[in-house]
């Protein structure tokens, strides 16, 4: 079970595990923020740590809360270790790596839901089964939310309700999650009673 304790939720809400070393010709790690700790914990369990690092490619970016553990990951001595400044700058590198990856590649995703979800989406697009991509949540619980009305995605949502960054509607945040979009669903909260928007509450930190 994940170290982050999430409240009970509906069945479309992702659940996260704990990264475990698995056999593979290449170990591709995608992480952000506190996810770096999940990577070092996983390596500590590896029977052949040096062998694993010699076949490991780490792609990392700081978390939405500013946590930056690049130095810790760089010190591991992986075959490749790259720091992207943001998630949007990280993703093109992942796509390039996937373009000529082979079966036998092991995927490890760690950190916030926004990072894990978007990396999973891009790996899935190759035909690789999402079920077999390892995912461990660490750090911030802010959410990536799609507005069901205008389809715009608002990153790092902390409050419920919140204002859609694209169309300006007030949205409540559901636990319903789309792996294809890598986002939770936001629905207009005052559709039936326009103007009656409850004050926002911080639900995701």
């Amino acid at each position, binding site marked *: 079970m994940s170290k982050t304790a999430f409240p009970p939720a509906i069945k479309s809400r992702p659940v996260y595990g704990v990264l475990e070393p698995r056999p593979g010709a290449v170990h591709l790690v995608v992480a952000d923020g506190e996810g770096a700790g999940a990577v070092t914990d996983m390596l500590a369990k590896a029977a052949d740590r040096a062998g694993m690092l010699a076949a490991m490619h780490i792609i990392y970016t700081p978390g939405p809360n500013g946590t930056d553990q690049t130095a810790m990951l760089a010190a591991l001595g992986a075959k490749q270790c790259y720091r992207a400044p943001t998630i949007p700058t990280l993703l093109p590198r992942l796509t390039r790596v996937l373009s000529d990856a082979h*079966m036998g*590649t092991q995927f490890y995703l760690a950190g916030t839901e926004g990072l894990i979800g978007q990396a999973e989406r891009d790996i899935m697009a190759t*035909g*690789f*089964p999402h079920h*077999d991509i390892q995912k461990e949540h660490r750090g911030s619980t802010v959410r990536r939310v799609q507005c069901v009305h205008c389809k715009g995605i608002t990153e790092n949502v902390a409050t419920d309700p919140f204002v859609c960054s694209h169309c300006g509607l007030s949205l409540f945040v559901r636990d319903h999650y789309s792996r294809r979009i890598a986002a939770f669903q936001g629905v207009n909260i005052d559709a039936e009673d326009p103007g009656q928007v409850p004050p926002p509450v911080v639900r995701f930190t």
Partner: protein
Amino acid sequence: MSGGAKLKVRVAEVVNVNDMIKRFRFVSLDGSPMPAFSGGAHTVVEMDDDGVRRLNPYSLMSDPEDRSAYEISVRRDDAGRGGSLFMHRHVTPGLQMEISYPVNLFPLDTRARKHLMIAGGIGITPFLAQIAQLTHFGGRFELHYAARSQALGAYMDRLTAAHPAQVHCYFDDQGQVIDLARVLSMQPIGTHLYVCGPKGMIAWVLSTATSLGWPEKALHHEEFLAPGTGMPFQVDLAATGKTITVGTNQSLLEAMEAAGVDAPYLCRGGACGQCETNVIACDGAILHRDHWLTADEHAAGRKIMPCVSRFEGKSLTIDR
């Protein structure tokens, strides 16, 4: 109705493929087109073997877009319970038979970037239909096909002629073995693997792939179990109030059917789950032989798959 919708067919042709394998061609009795199907599907063929009703699943090997007929290939099993022997000895052109609508327990994952197929012996049959379907609708594939000898390598000629770059053949009697580790290491991300053949081969392929980091959900296999033989045993059927005896060469499902109990089924090979039955009381050991129930369910002993599983002990009561 148990077993689902049926097709009434006539045997149009029987062909000796080699010493062990015969091919059967079925056309519809009323001349209407056969339903299209998906590569990997099987049909359950119903046989009347001198009063004994046998129902065996066989993979459809013909082109799924050929609506004029279905074709299956049957390997003779001299030590088996008699289904394949009946097909070889008694099924001749002109015979009217009933077969089930196609059911697919071995489908291609059509999102895959590439399909890697590994066949042993008669396990080639589902791949023949899948390759025909991929040829019509697009899709990359690579086939590795092992047979005991060149003479027993059914359909190798037509496969290599049609797909020389995709098909690789191996012969046991020439000491040829698939270099599995190398084949598995060469596949682009998003490849799915399918294996059909003898039990040992399936286990070898799956364990090798897993040890090389292949994901569980990209590994697909099909293995029909013959119901197998065993000691006779007695079963109480709680719902119908009958007590039946299952003979040595009979499955529990067949014994229920012989007693006039209409029990559900589809594949009759321990794979589909349709015949799952609750165990009400059991003083003895259930000999689970199916792929459907989980290991925990096997251990718990509260369910049985009557198509393949048997019983040894004092008494067994099931909910039928």
